[in-house]
């Protein structure tokens, strides 16, 4: 059985690249959901079964940090694993996102294998 994954990033091009990496990595994904901002992401999280979230930080309306904050405040969302994919590589931001419960952090620019490795680690799976 596969998993359902949400990609939150205001760049349609980056969402396409992330999706391609995950497909090429051999993960069993039942469904890809996409959100262009944190607002959209929250709405999907509250209405759809989602197993793992990949989120950017800088997005319009609600950003990635606010998204994590909101998730922490909701019983049904708190435990869902989040991997941050962001151009912000400052220590300050990284610590903040991890303190807010992010399980992984990838900085842009990244190699595709980085995304595969982080997803394998966070999901506890190994793709042959």
């Amino acid at each position, binding site marked *: 059985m596969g998993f359902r994954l949400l990609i939150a990033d205001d760049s349609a091009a980056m969402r396409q690249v992330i999706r391609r990496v995950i497909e090429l990595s*051999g993960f069993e994904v039942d469904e890809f959901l996409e959100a262009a901002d944190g607002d959209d992401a929250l709405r999907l999280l509250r209405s759809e079964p989602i197993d793992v979230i990949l989120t950017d930080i800088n997005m319009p309306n609600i950003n990635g940090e606010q998204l994590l904050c909101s998730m922490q405040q909701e019983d049904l969302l708190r435990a869902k694993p989040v991997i941050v994919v962001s151009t912000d590589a400052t220590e300050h931001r990284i610590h903040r996102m991890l303190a807010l419960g992010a399980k992984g*952090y990838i900085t842009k620019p990244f*190699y595709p294998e*980085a995304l595969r490795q982080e997803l394998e*680690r966070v999901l506890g799976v190994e793709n042959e």
Partner: protein
Amino acid sequence: MRSLIVGIADCQVSNDPDAVLVTYALGSCIAVTVWDPVVRVGGMLHFMLPDSTIDLPQAGKRPYMFADVGVPLLFRQSYEMGAEKRRMVVRLAGGAQVMDDHGVFDIGRRNYVATRKILWKAGVLIQQEAVGGSGSRTVRLEVGTGKMWLRGAGGVEEEFGAPSRGSKGIVYGVPSTDRG
């Protein structure tokens, strides 16, 4: 074990479980290796330059000299032996920063970028790599097992892809997921 030597601007593909593909003295050149664990087909390309369009006649005579021609040929020859892209383990070695005959210092890096571009467009991810730096490398691939061995300038041979820090973009020191 039977050694199949892959020379400079050369490519070998084998389905002989006793074969070991080996290439020497990878400086700025890159070795691209593929291995299909189901049909046990292994291939190795040793190329020198990124782009054949600079010398098309040469590319016709020595296709394995260039990444853009050699890599697709490596894959095609592997498919002809029954390998499938989605199963293939792909590894890279080489791309060191050395002064070559033309005095061009950055050819290793250019080879690496070109290889990544070709593989990304082909829809292939890289499993392991030992690239960059400044030393020469020798690699060998056991066709029967898929194991790959690396010898650096220091002379010690070790198995390729022994646990490493992983890939560019990962932030380390993130606590592991608690799994009950």
